[in-house]
């Protein structure tokens, strides 16, 4: 008999393992492992979660060590202490909420967050480019030294973060210049 769709892990409980399924989960106790739920997950003020949480909506008022990925919304209320990455289309961090980790909203709306998220993705992409793109790198070498902004644009399609891109091109340009010298 389905009396309730809400799973409550009460204050005195300790779950070590995976929690999966449909429905909503309220965590007032301790959880270690992984939480992957189709509904909403609420970590209460006394909740201590050492797990990654994947859900449609996540509200945190307690302590979480793990990544939080929500498909709809993610909210850290006052009293939330999160060490881990946050990823959701809509993220709210209320005053008093503490977080340490990468924050990524669905559309990369805030530039610094977008740069931080795309930095590691861009570096390997651009490092792979100098080898095939030697000619534009050589041509761009004097331009790169003088004015960094025009040089990354042909090499990198997004107008994001010229500073992280330029050192890589400089390295490639130096290599191109060296090869020129040889």
């Amino acid at each position, binding site marked *: 008999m389905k009396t*309730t769709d809400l799973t409550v892990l009460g204050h*005195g409980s*300790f779950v070590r393992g995976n929690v999966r399924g449909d429905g909503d989960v309220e965590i007032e106790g301790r959880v270690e492992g992984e939480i992957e*739920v189709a509904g909403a997950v609420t970590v209460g003020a006394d909740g201590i979660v050492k797990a990654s949480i994947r859900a449609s909506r996540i509200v945190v008022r307690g302590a979480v060590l793990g990544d939080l990925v929500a498909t709809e919304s993610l909210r850290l209320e006052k009293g939330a202490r999160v060490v881990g990455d946050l990823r959701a289309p809509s993220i709210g961090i209320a005053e008093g909420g503490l977080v340490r980790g990468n924050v990524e909203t669905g559309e990369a709306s805030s530039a610094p967050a977008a740069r931080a998220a795309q930095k590691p993705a861009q570096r390997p992409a651009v490092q792979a480019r100098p080898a095939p793109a030697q000619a534009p790198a050589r041509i761009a070498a004097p331009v790169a030294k003088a004015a960094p902004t025009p040089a990354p644009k042909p090499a990198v399609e997004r107008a994001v973060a010229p500073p992280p891109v330029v050192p890589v091109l400089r390295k490639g340009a130096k290599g191109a210049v060296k090869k020129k010298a040889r």
Partner: protein
Amino acid sequence: MASTVIAQGITIEGEVTTDDQVVVQGTLRGKLAAKDVVTIENGAVVEADVSGASVSVGGHVTGNVSANERVDLVAGGRLVGDVRAAKLTIADGASFKGNVDMDV
């Protein structure tokens, strides 16, 4: 009065240790160690050893059940596993396969 409820759509794989009362309506695989009343409702699937102060089995339980006070197999409950408790009732309509040890 704290209470832990594992709702019907949820599957927990692992160990659950709690001081609260526990109501299981979903699926639990692993181990359940409670200090209070454990109620496994109709529709629940528990593949775990269950221990509590008292345990009521109304769903499918595969595993040993031990309680400090009593174990009740209610109608609709199926238990495959051993029972250790001071008191035991098996209702009309419940299924049970296992050993019983009441000398606790």
